[in-house]
């Protein structure tokens, strides 16, 4: 008899498990749809306000959304490892472009904050 609590047995990679994985990501189906629409609106706003950077960033995210859409269709009704692998490939594409756009966006914000701080310092010392 063991005096230590044992970890529950790791389940097998069965078709049911692959379905659960597919379902876990497919639950976000509506959110992906809404996210694509919101990103589209954001891209439109950037376009009408001649915000080229905004258009570029929204474009990257929209490309990511397209990959997420494809990923959803792969995960849906997954029954074997290859379905999950295909879904993961598309999901990786979404994650990549979303990360790049965030990094560029926040990099520009950092630049803006640094310039504003520099301007304030100059104002403080010169005036």
């Amino acid at each position, binding site marked *: 008899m063991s005096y230590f609590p044992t970890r529950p047995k*790791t*389940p*097998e*990679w069965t078709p049911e*498990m*692959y379905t*659960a*994985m597919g379902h*876990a*990501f497919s*639950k*976000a189906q509506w*959110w*992906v749809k*809404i*996210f694509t629409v*919101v*990103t589209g*609106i*954001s891209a439109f*706003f950037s376009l009408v306000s001649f915000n080229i950077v905004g258009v570029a960033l929204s474009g990257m995210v929209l490309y990511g959304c397209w990959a*997420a859409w494809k990923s959803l269709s792969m*995960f849906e009704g997954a029954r074997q*490892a290859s379905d*999950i*692998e295909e879904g*993961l*490939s598309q*999901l*990786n594409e979404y*994650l*990549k472009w*979303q*990360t790049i756009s*965030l*990094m560029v*966006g*926040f990099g520009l*914000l*950092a630049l803006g*904050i640094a310039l504003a701080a520099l301007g304030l310092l100059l104002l403080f010392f010169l005036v």
Partner: protein
Amino acid sequence: MSDASSFLPIDRERLETCLKWTRWFSWACLAGGILLCATLILIPFGGFAFWQYWVLKNATESLESVLKRNDPRDLVMALEGIGFQFLIQIIGMVAGLALSVLFLIAIFTSLGLSLSQFMEPGALEAQLRAQQVQHDTWQHQ
């Protein structure tokens, strides 16, 4: 001791790529949260970024666990986390767009008000005359 990951039925490379980008994504959210809070006026948006960082950090840990322990339940949790971050991002983006629209309305309203003041016949002259009178009064005093 056998390496549990060698029994992983899913291509390890794809899982590692997913782990890499999820980790970078979470770090980008953390950095963004700090930057947004540094602006002072965008602190609520920083909160969304931190929330997203926390969700993605958990997904990263789950993905690491899949590679280490070969447990399919961890991949289910990781995919749920990655799916959930869409919702947080939607809330943040909608709030950001609403703020931009309010900002634009405020700019155009103030522009319109200033223009309408100058567009009224004789408004500019009246304003200048009033300023001159005030100036004369001060000089007289």
